[in-house]
């Protein structure tokens, strides 16, 4: 016996190929089980995170030692601390370029010179 996800996918294929049923508004992703979708999303999230981290590391000016990148559900979140507003904007700029159409959320804390010295 096939597993439940495989059966569901098979059923979807039959429906899509059946005469007169091809026009049904049933997107392929809706037929998949949640487990399959989540697994694919997690893989994509990990790839995006790795790309953003590598890009920040390779940048000649961005000091990203205290920045953490987390991607969940396609949303890229930048966390941590920077002490220069230039780094903050640069991190956001690079993350957006890698993330493409995905959302990038800035959760970085900026600690300025005044706060450091006073």
């Amino acid at each position: 016996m096939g597993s439940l996800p495989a059966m569901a996918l098979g059923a979807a294929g039959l429906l899509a190929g059946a005469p007169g049923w091809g026009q049904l508004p049933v997107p392929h992703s809706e037929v998949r089980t949640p487990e399959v979708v989540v697994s694919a999303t997690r893989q994509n999230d990990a790839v995006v995170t790795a790309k953003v981290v590598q890009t920040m590391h390779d940048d000649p000016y961005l000091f990203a030692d205290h920045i953490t990148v987390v991607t969940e559900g396609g949303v890229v979140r930048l966390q941590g601390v920077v002490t220069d507003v230039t780094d903050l904007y640069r991190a956001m700029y690079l993350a957006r370029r890698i993330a493409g159409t995905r959302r990038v959320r800035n959760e970085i804390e900026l600690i300025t010179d005044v706060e450091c010295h006073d």
Partner: protein
Amino acid sequence: MGNEWAMKFGGQYHFDFGLTISVLYEDMHRDLPAVMEFQNERQRTGDWVSFDYVFPNGADRIAAGWAHAGASVGDPGGQHNFNPNGIGNNQANMYTLAWWHKLDKQLTWYADIADTANDGNAHYDIGAGGHGIKTDCHDATHELFIDYSSAGPTTWGGCHELGVSTGLNFRF
């Protein structure tokens, strides 16, 4: 003696493309009897506008600002060159410009300049902002002009002060 009150409004907006605009307005009041208003130097308005831009290259940042001190109701004088007929002629403007350039991930070179232009009876100073020693309004007073009328050397009005600062900043 007189009651005093003050209010201050400020706002700051960050644009995604690297620009930050800051504005500030302050209004300070000192309630005095009319006969004492001639020495009411504490009542005035103040404004500040600043533009701060971070370039997309990740290496450069520039900032420009303008600060303005409005005229006060009175002026107790005390400056060597105080003009008693110039009450209200004590506004001041300060213009600032700063540039930061990152040499690598942790080393940044900066340079900034501030220019304060005082009206004839105004004697505002440049705030050094933590870099070096703050200039004092009593500095550069020649001994010949020290009249000790205010228990020490008095200041000059209408000065045009210019401050420049440059240095390196390393972040760990």
